[in-house]
C-alpha cells in the first residue's frame, strides 16, 4: 500500500496494484456519511476496432457496443444486480463515455458487502441471446430520446463535421441499425479484451478505512483467475488534422436556434502531459469566453447569447477538441462575431490580468469539488488513467503561463481545423 499526502489540501490518497494488474485507490473523507466507489475500464465508444485477447487478427464490432455491454453487465443468472445493491441499501449506476465505461455505487452503510458486489458483477459476464434481444428495445428508446435532444444533436453534428474516420464521430449509444447487429458473442469478445483487471481502476472515496478496503480487494481478487495479458491493441485510424466539413445545419422542432463552434486539436498527441494541456486549454477558453469576459458581456447585452453559452475543452486518448456556443436567435451572426473575437485576440493579444483571475477562479472551483465523493472517485480515476493524481490538478493549474495560452491560441485555432454546427428551427415549429 502506497500513501501520498497532500498537506495544503489536507487529503491523503492510498493506492496499490493487485497481482493481476488491477489498480486500486482509496481516499478517506472524515465526517462523511457516504462512500462512493467506481470500477472503471479504459474502454469506451471509440474502441470499435481492436485485436481480441488471445487472437492475432483484428476485428471491427458494431457501433454502440461498449454502451450496450454496460447495460447488459447488470444482469446475471440470479437476475438484476440493481436489485442486489438495493437490498444492501446502495444505489448503483453506470455510464459509458468515448473512452471509459464506469460502474459505481454509493452507500451509507455496508460498504464492504457492496464493494464485493461491485467487483463480482463487473467481473462476471453473463449474456444470453434472449436478454440481448430484450435490451435492443430499451436502448432503441434511449437512442430515440437523444434524437429529440437538440443539445445532444448539436454536439454530435459538430463531431461529424470535425472527424472523417475517427469513431468519435459516432453517437456513444450507436444507431438503431448498429445495435440490432450486436450478438451475444460480440459482447463476450469485447468483454474479455477490455475488462481485464490490468485495464481497470477501482476508486473508493468516502467514509472508509484504507487498510480494510485493500484487504477486501486482495482477497476478492485472489479468488479469481484471468488469462495473462500484455496490453490491448487498438486499431488506430488515420485521421487528417483538418476538419471534414466547415459547417452543417440541422432543423428540429425548437423555438430558439443553437450554434456551436468547434476546433479539432492536436493536444492529445502530447501524451506525457495531457492534464497540463487540458488545464492550458481550459484557462484559454475561460480567459477569452468565460462569464465576465469582454466577449461574453458584449454578446450577451446585444442579445446574441444567453446564459446557456459555454465552452468545453475535451482531451481524450486519441482525439482532442475545443467547442463553444449555446442558444442564439441569430446563429450566423453569432458565429461571425465569435470568429472575430478569436481573430482579434490572435492579432492584439489577451488580457493578462484576466488570465490570472481565471486561474484563481478555476483553482477555487477545484478545491470546492473536493467536497464531492463523486467528483473525487470519477476524476480521481481519470487522472489515474493518465498516471497522475487528482490532487495534482491544483499544482498543474499553477504551472500554466500566459505565454502558454497565447501560444495555444496561435497554433491551434485556425481556419482549416474549424467547423460550425447549427440547429435551426423548422419552419412549422410554431404550428
Amino acid at each position, binding site marked *: 500500500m502506497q500513501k501520498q499526502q497532500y498537506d*495544503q489540501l489536507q487529503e491523503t490518497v492510498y493506492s496499490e496494484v493487485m497481482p493481476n494488474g488491477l489498480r486500486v485507490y482509496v481516499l478517506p473523507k472524515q465526517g462523511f456519511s457516504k462512500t462512493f466507489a467506481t470500477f472503471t475500464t479504459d474502454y469506451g465508444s471509440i474502441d470499435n476496432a481492436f485485436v481480441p485477447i488471445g487472437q492475432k487478427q483484428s476485428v471491427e464490432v458494431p457501433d454502440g457496443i461498449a454502451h450496450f455491454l454496460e447495460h447488459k453487465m447488470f444482469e446475471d443468472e440470479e437476475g*438484476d444486480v440493481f436489485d442486489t445493491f438495493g437490498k444492501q441499501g446502495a444505489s448503483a449506476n453506470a455510464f459509458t463515455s468515448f473512452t471509459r465505461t464506469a460502474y459505481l455505487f454509493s452507500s451509507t452503510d455496508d460498504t464492504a458487502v457492496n464493494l464485493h458486489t461491485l467487483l463480482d458483477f463487473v467481473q462476471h459476464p453473463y449474456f444470453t441471446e434472449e436478454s440481448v434481444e430484450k435490451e435492443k428495445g430499451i436502448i432503441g*428508446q434511449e437512442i*430515440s430520446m437523444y434524437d429529440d435532444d437538440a443539445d445532444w444533436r448539436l454536439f454530435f453534428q459538430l463531431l461529424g463535421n470535425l472527424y472523417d474516420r475517427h469513431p468519435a464521430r459516432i453517437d456513444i449509444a450507436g444507431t438503431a441499425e448498429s445495435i440490432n447487429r450486436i450478438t451475444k458473442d460480440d459482447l463476450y469478445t469485447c468483454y474479455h479484451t477490455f475488462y481485464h483487471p490490468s485495464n481497470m481502476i477501482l476508486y473508493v472515496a468516502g467514509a472508509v478505512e484504507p487498510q480494510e478496503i485493500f484487504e477486501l480487494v486482495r482477497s476478492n481478487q485472489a479468488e479469481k483467475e484471468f488469462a495473462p495479458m500484455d496490453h490491448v491493441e487498438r486499431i488506430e485510424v488515420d485521421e487528417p488534422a483538418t476538419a471534414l466539413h466547415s459547417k452543417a445545419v440541422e432543423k428540429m422542432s425548437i*423555438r430558439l436556434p443553437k450554434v456551436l463552434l468547434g476546433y479539432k486539436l492536436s493536444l492529445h498527441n502530447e501524451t506525457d502531459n495531457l492534464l497540463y494541456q487540458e488545464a492550458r486549454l481550459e484557462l484559454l477558453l475561460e480567459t477569452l469566453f468565460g462569464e465576465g469576459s469582454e466577449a461574453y458581456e458584449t454578446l450577451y*447585452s446585444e442579445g446574441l447569447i444567453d446564459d446557456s453559452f459555454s465552452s468545453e475543452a475535451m482531451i481524450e486518448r486519441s482525439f482532442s477538441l475545443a467547442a463553444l456556443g449555446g442558444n442564439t436567435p441569430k446563429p450566423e451572426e453569432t458565429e461571425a462575431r465569435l470568429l472575430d473575437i478569436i481573430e482579434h485576440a490572435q492579432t492584439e493579444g489577451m488580457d493578462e490580468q484576466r488570465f490570472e483571475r481565471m486561474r*484563481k477562479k478555476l483553482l477555487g472551483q477545484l478545491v470546492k469539488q473536493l*467536497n464531492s465523493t463523486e467528483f473525487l472517485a470519477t476524476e480521481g480515476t481519470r487522472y489515474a488513467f493518465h498516471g497522475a493524481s487528482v490532487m495534482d490538478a491544483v499544482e498543474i493549474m499553477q504551472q500554466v503561463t500566459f505565454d502558454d495560452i497565447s501560444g495555444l491560441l496561435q497554433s491551434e485555432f485556425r481556419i482549416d481545423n474549424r467547423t460550425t454546427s447549427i440547429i435551426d428551427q423548422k419552419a412549422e415549429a410554431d404550428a
Partner: protein
Amino acid sequence: MQPVTTNTNIPVHLFQTKQFKTTAVIMQCRAPLSEHTAAGRALLARVLKKGSLRYPSQSHIKEKLDDLYGASFSVDVGKRGNYHVMSFRMEFVNEQFLPAQEDLFAEATAFLAEMVHAPLAENRAFNPKIVEEEKRTLLQKINTIYDEKDRYANMRLVQEMCSAEAYSVHPLGDAHRMEALDEQKLYDVYEQFLAEDAIDVYVVGDVESYDVEAVTGPFPERSSLPPVEDSAERPPRVRYVEESDDIHQGKLQLGYRTTITQDDPQFAAMQVTNGLFGGFPHSKLFQEVREKRSLAYYAASRYESQKGLVMVMTGIEKEQYEQVKAVIGEQLQALQQEPVSEELLAQTKGMLINQIRETTDAPGGLAALHFQGKMAGRVRPIETWIEEIEQVSADDVLACANSIVLDTVFFLHGKEDKDAETTV
C-alpha cells in the same frame, strides 16, 4: 445534524461542521405562488444578480468573485408547493485550504448583503438596460421550455391538471406579464420582496461565530406569511390531453393526487409508497415497463410532497400508448390491492434512508432538508425522519396507495404523417 438558530427578525440557521472545504451561505425568500407576481419575482432575481451600486456590471461582479477564489454566487426562483422561492446562494472556499490570508467569510457575506440591499437603482427604478436584457433572456427561457420535450410535457400536464390552482403557475411566470414589466414596476416588486417575504438564512461550514446583521443585511421588521389557500379539486373523471409535435419519441406523463403532504403523519409512508411505485430501479414502473416489456428507457414517478401530487413520466413509441398506460394503471392497482413483500419494503426503506443521508454530504443538502420542513410547517430532525421511514408497514403502504387517484394524462407524440398537419 441540527442547526443552531438565531431567532432575530430574519432567522439564521448555522450548521457548524468541519466536513466541507467550503462555506455556503443561502438566503431562502418565499412568497405565495401567484400568477400576478411570479414573472416580476423571476425578473427581480436576475436583475439583482446582475448589478449593485458597488458592482455595477457583470465584469465588476465576476472580478470580485474571481478574487474570492472563484466564489459562486447565484440568484434564482423556484416553485415549492404553493410557494414561490427566491434563493440567493454563495459558496466559497474556506481560506485554511488556500495560500490566502484574507477573511473570505466576511468578504463574501458583505458581498451578498450588498447585492440584496444596495441594487443598481436610482429614483425608485432599476437600471433600464439591465432590466431590458434580463427581460429578453427570461422571455427566451419561457419560450424555449418547448425545446426540451420532457420539461414541456411536464409543464403542460401541470397546467391542465391544476388549471384552477396556484400550483399551475410556472416559476418564471408567463410571457404576457413579463412583457408588461419595466424598471419602475420592478422596483415595486423589490420593495414588496424586502417588506413581506418570509426569509431564512443558512450558513453551512467551519464557522464558529459571526455577526448576524452583517450576514442578513438590514431587512425591515416583518409579520409572518398568511397561510396559503389551496383549492385542489378532483375532477369528476380523468382528463386526457394529447398534443403532437415533430419528434421521434412520445412523452407520456400521468398526474395523480394524494391527500398526504409533508406535514402529514403518513408522509414517510407515502415516500416509501412512491419509491415502490416508480422511485427506484426495483420499483414496479421500472421493472414492468422497462425491464420486463422493453417499452421504455425510463419510467419513473415523483412525489411532490408540498402539494400532494404524484407524477409519472416515461418516453415511448406512439403506437404503444394504450399498452403503456394500461401497464402503469395495473402497477398502481397492485399496490392498492396486495400488501407489498417485506423484502421489497425493506429494500425501499434502505434506498430512501441512503438518499437522505447522502443529501447531508453536500453543504446545500443540509440546508435544503431543513428548509423543506420549515415550509411544510414541520421540521423533522434527520434521525426522526429516518425512524419514521423505518417504522412504515405494508399496511401503511396499502393505505397510502389507496389515497392516490389519477387526475390527468398528458401525451405529447410524433405526427401521423410528417407532411400533414394534425391537430388534436
